[in-house]
């Protein structure tokens, strides 16, 4: 739910930022995307993700790290293009 205490301008900015994050997520490879979504959006622990994806726990951590890093790079690139 959007924060009702925020000003309209802040709400619009938040919506735009979320849209950018969603677009950046779509650009990630499926392996990295599913790992970061399960971890950061679904709040699953590493063992659960390893069971769900049927990969070792170390691979789960590696994919999460690479997914977050790649996402940050994409967002920074978009931010530079916008400004």
């Amino acid at each position, binding site marked *: 739910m959007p924060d009702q205490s925020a000003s309209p301008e802040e709400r619009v900015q938040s919506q735009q*930022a979320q849209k950018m*994050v969603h677009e950046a997520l779509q650009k990630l490879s499926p392996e990295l995307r599913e790992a*970061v979504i399960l*971890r950061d959006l679904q709040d699953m622990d590493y063992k659960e993700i390893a069971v769900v994806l049927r990969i070792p726990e170390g691979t789960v*951590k590696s994919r999460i790290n690479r997914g977050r890093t*790649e996402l940050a790079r994409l*967002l920074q690139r978009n931010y530079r293009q916008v400004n």
Partner: protein
Amino acid sequence: MQDQTKSGMQCAEFEALLAEALDATLPGTTMAAFEAHQKECEACAAMYVQAATGMHWLKGLEDIEPPKHLVHNILAQTIGSVPEAGTQTLPVSASWLEKLKARAASVFAPVMTPRFAMSFGMAFFSITMLANVAGVHANDLRHLDLSARGLQKTYYSTEARVVRYYENIRLVYEIESRVRDLRRAATPEKQEENTPKSPSKKTGSQEQEHKYQNYSRDVTQPVLASFPVVDEQETPQARLNRRTA
């Protein structure tokens, strides 16, 4: 990434601990070594910042309510069957028939799929076609008596039928054989005249071999042909008289 050892920790080790460090779940000594390596290694520090930024953005996303029928649609498109919501939690006041239906539905859920129905239909079609080719009909099966007494009766009647058939065949053979003997006894000279004279030069072994080779033409051999035997010596006038008689 360069695999350098700084502050007692390699870059690969730093990367492996990065996720837990961002979750703040590393033990004290390991966290201290991690931070020390981060301060000394620029590449690892940059990676830490980017991973932290990505996590921050992801955590800042609002929770999206999944569509109402998301699970239903996923199950329908993957396994083809959808467990009904009512079958999972039935009210206590449900009748025993509904409970039975719910239990049966949960048990047969993997079977009640279009793919299984297709396979079952093809198998039924194949069996029906084979039964038709083999001459087995449903009406015959309906009158089949599978009791012990019925099976015994069927066995004895079949056995009697086989014995009767064998006896009939034997009688026919015997009659044919007698008729042939009588005919040969009635016309012995004609047969001798018709048979070409064998050369007298043949030895005994050659004659025996000839006999074995033509054993199928032996007159004592039973003949199953059903054509009427026509006397070759019968004249056209005699044949006409026989027909008009």
